[in-house]
């Protein structure tokens, strides 16, 4: 029995270990304990997609997972995209070039889903892209520019 847990995991290649309440969600763990605030907390019930990160390479909602459940996992957050020199990842560049964001709140989630999508389906067509992006809400862009951003990112990654 325990209401607290020691969680050891890796985020963007760096190891972390913190003892937290068992009820703590993974997104709060990332923001408050690890100190990476790029991942946003939106709806807190898995609908909006703002908190999406990669766990062992798969996109998951970090607001509806406990930090304790990620013990031993390899996580990737939006902070893991750009190089340490500050050079943006092609996905980020494409979102910038195609105006795939306005307020930016939903963007970290969109970027992480796009990362998994294009890693697994580099030739994703529009229907496939829409299916994956449907797990994210954006209240600013109307989605068209996001779709264009992902298409551009796909072609840049293919031609890299």
């Amino acid at each position, binding site marked *: 029995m325990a*209401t607290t847990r020691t969680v050891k995991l890796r985020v963007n290649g760096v190891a972390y270990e913190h003892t937290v309440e068992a009820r703590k969600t993974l997104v709060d763990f990332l923001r408050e304990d690890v100190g990476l605030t790029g991942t946003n907390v939106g709806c807190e019930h898995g609908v909006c997609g703002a908190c999406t990160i990669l766990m062992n390479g798969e996109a998951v909602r970090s607001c509806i997972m406990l930090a304790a459940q990620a013990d031993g996992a390899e996580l990737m957050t939006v902070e893991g995209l750009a190089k340490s020199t500050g050079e943006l990842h092609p996905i980020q560049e494409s979102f910038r070039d195609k105006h795939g964001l306005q307020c930016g709140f939903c963007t970290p989630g969109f970027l992480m889903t796009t990362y998994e999508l294009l890693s697994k389906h580099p030739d994703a067509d529009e229907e496939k892209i829409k299916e994956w992006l449907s797990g994210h809400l954006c209240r600013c862009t109307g989605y068209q520019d996001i779709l264009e951003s992902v298409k551009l990112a796909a072609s840049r990654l293919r031609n890299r």
Partner: protein
Amino acid sequence: MKPPKFDYYDPRSLDEALALLDRHSDDAKVLAGGQSLMPLLNMRLARPSIVVDINQIEELNYVRASDGDIAIGAIARQRALQTEKLIAERVPILREGAYYIAHPQIRSRGTICGSIAHADPAAELPALALALDAEMILTSAKAARTVGAKAFFQSFFTTALKANEILTEVRFPAPPKDSAWSVLEISRRHGDFAIAGIIAGLVLESNREVIAHARLVYFGVGATPIRVTAAEEALIGQAASESAFEAAAQSAKQGIDPTSDIHATEEYRRALAATLTKRALRAALQKLGKN
């Protein structure tokens, strides 16, 4: 909001998990993929004093063939429906249905058994379980029992599962080789819960004209997934034609039990069920190589 305080256990074996549930059944909740329970905890609609996380129980992580059935363990993820070759070969309709289940970001965590145990009447997996005559294996510290889908789904979010039991496995029989299946649903956005949905199965007589068997199961239109046998009977013995499909559609409209809510009115759901009946039957017929 954030979850209320609870004692957290993540046992490594099924026996350990079952012993915990036996001891604390009324205060405990089983946490599998968490895609339904975690939102309920965050919103404090669920306040268990004990959470038994079964994700570390590797013996429950499988999709395998078993006597012609597909046996799926309690922590197999919904993404497995799209990636397991066995499912594509033996029960391809499960793969098609998975397309409608929420989003890839949810299916990576959400479990097949968890969705069935949660029993949301608008969800795809409970309806697929009913349509395909799936059997649920409910295991407690003392015994295991097998319950068919019809007896398993009792009402909104209510099943035959007792508080000291875990749905350890769902078994999907491979449907007859000469059957064709179709799954369709209408929702405002892809991945939302269905306003109305259908799973239709069709078998033709050897003359390839007359309908020998039909299966029609609806979701989002009642307290549980609903099989409408009257609509099936409207098809059996009839030529596979638009007029038979129309008769089934009209029968289905009456055989379901929808309510009005913020997403749709009862009347609209009945109309959708009728339209989906025809579309799904046409799609199934097409798969049988007929147009």
